[in-house]
């Protein structure tokens, strides 16, 4: 039985008076891939963003409940956000590259955390690009602007950038929905490869994708976690009628 990496207990989030997450409790096992599915606006992104506390960027956001990562309560007020976010990386829907060179994009995180040694930086950048399966395409071009890469390459660059700070958890918010099928497939392969080494929480609208890459799937609706279980079970024999309705296309 795997160790619990992330533990959420009764987490609720409001934007002002509007609830976005209601009393969500779940566990994520270390090294597992958890897929979050559900209709638009049901709170999937909010659930991701509460794990690295990026929801707090919205001034009117209010969080209730507890979250532990490796047993550490990360919602407590004195929690060091920098330390939290070093452990929890995030990939967004739109491939985001900073207006710098490929190298500087990947080196951005390590530099934030005080890595200055040029040799070591190069090593980290190369390793991360290899992990993100981008190295072969960009070697020798690291000084070129990142914006010259294709959308799929930029998304892998974003992954390399996140991996470069050596996180343990990776949050992915619809990482392939802005990509062509080929690029999406490569990201999927990567997620499968990262499995075991990293704990991944991934939001997706693509049910096949969830079925292909995830170990566990959670179904959210109107801010509530309706059902969470092994992916094979959720997709073949959901316990809740609402999950079944969503999977068969009756909702959304």
């Amino acid at each position, binding site marked *: 039985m795997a160790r619990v990496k992330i533990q959420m207990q009764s987490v609720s989030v409001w934007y002002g008076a509007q609830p976005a997450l209601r009393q969500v409790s779940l566990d994520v096992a270390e090294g597992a891939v958890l897929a979050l599915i559900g209709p638009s606006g049901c709170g999937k992104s909010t659930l991701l963003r509460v794990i*690295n506390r*990026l929801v707090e*960027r919205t001034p009117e956001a209010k969080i209730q409940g507890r979250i532990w990562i490796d047993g550490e309560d990360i919602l407590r007020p004195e929690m060091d*956000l*920098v*330390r939290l*976010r*070093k452990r*929890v*990386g*995030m990939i*967004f829907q*739109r491939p*985001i590259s*900073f*207006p*710098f060179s490929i190298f500087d994009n990947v080196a*951005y*995180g390590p*530099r*934030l*955390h005080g890595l200055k040694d040029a040799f070591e930086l190069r090593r980290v950048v190369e390793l991360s690009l290899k992990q993100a399966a981008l190295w072969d395409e960009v070697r020798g071009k690291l000084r070129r*602007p990142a*914006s*010259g890469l294709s959308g799929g390459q930029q998304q892998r660059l*974003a992954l390399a*950038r*996140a991996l470069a*700070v050596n996180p343990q958890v990776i949050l992915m918010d619809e990482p392939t929905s802005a990509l062509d099928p080929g690029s999406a497939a490569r990201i999927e392969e990567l997620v499968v490869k990262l499995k075991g080494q990293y704990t991944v929480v991934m939001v997706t609208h693509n049910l096949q994708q969830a079925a292909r890459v995830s170990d566990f799937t959670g179904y959210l609706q109107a801010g509530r976690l309706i059902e969470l279980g092994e992916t094979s079970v959720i997709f073949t024999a959901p316990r809740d009628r609402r999950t079944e309705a969503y999977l068969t296309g009756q909702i959304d």
Partner: protein
Amino acid sequence: MNIQEASRRRSERVWMGVVAVASGLVFTVLGFLVAVLVMGAIGFAAQHGLVHTLLGARWQPLAGRLQIGLFIVDSALVTALAMLLALPFGIAVAIFGSLVAGAWERTVLRWILTLASAVPSVAYGWWGLAVVVPGIRGLGLGAGYGLVSAGLVLALMILPTFSVLAWEAILAVPEDWHQTSLALGANDDQNIIRLVLPASMAGLQTAFLTALARAVGETMAVQMVLGGAVSHFYGLFGPGATLTTQILTDMAVLPVGSPNHGVLDFMALVLFLGVTLMTGTMGRQVRGRGRP
């Protein structure tokens, strides 16, 4: 329907005509203006010598000694001082306004900056006379009229314009870049220094150049506190004269039609070319390095 169509076409044609005439007029007038300037400047340079005029520092307009080297130096110094002072404060105001301030503070600050950038430059000159000149004098740094005073007045004058433009440049950094940076563990300071400033560099430089152009061309506010000394370089705290202030001052002795009026055209052209050159080279650097 055909009638409607025809009348629409006709009114369109009338409007096109109006636009064409108006822009034609503007171009004619502008072209004429530049032509007059260039002709006067060329006539003057042909007679007095380009190098002699640019590199010398003897200015006695009634005696026909018309060397503008000192004014070029003073223009450069006053502008550089102003930009050096305005740059850090302007960036600070822009960062505060765009990223730090709450909604209420932001509105007030924006309102103040907009108002301040609409204040006529004479008012900044008055402020200079009332505050800067006595202040510098109070520090025991001379009469108070001088390059530093002019630089200070100019800095304050361009600060609102520069801040607002820099503010816009910083706001143009997309929200998800901020979030990506924060999600990598950047604290707020790192986010500003390592992401926001480099990412908005192109816009910041545009803001800088716009402010610079305004600073170089400013006349009245500078004249009021600069002192107008034309014979020597009296140091940074001593009085001086810039290209613009000297054009203003000696317009009276070199009016259109007087023999040496051309030197004023020449000075205006030097100013124009200087600004163009500066913005051109800096602009190219930005495009080379900035957002690819």
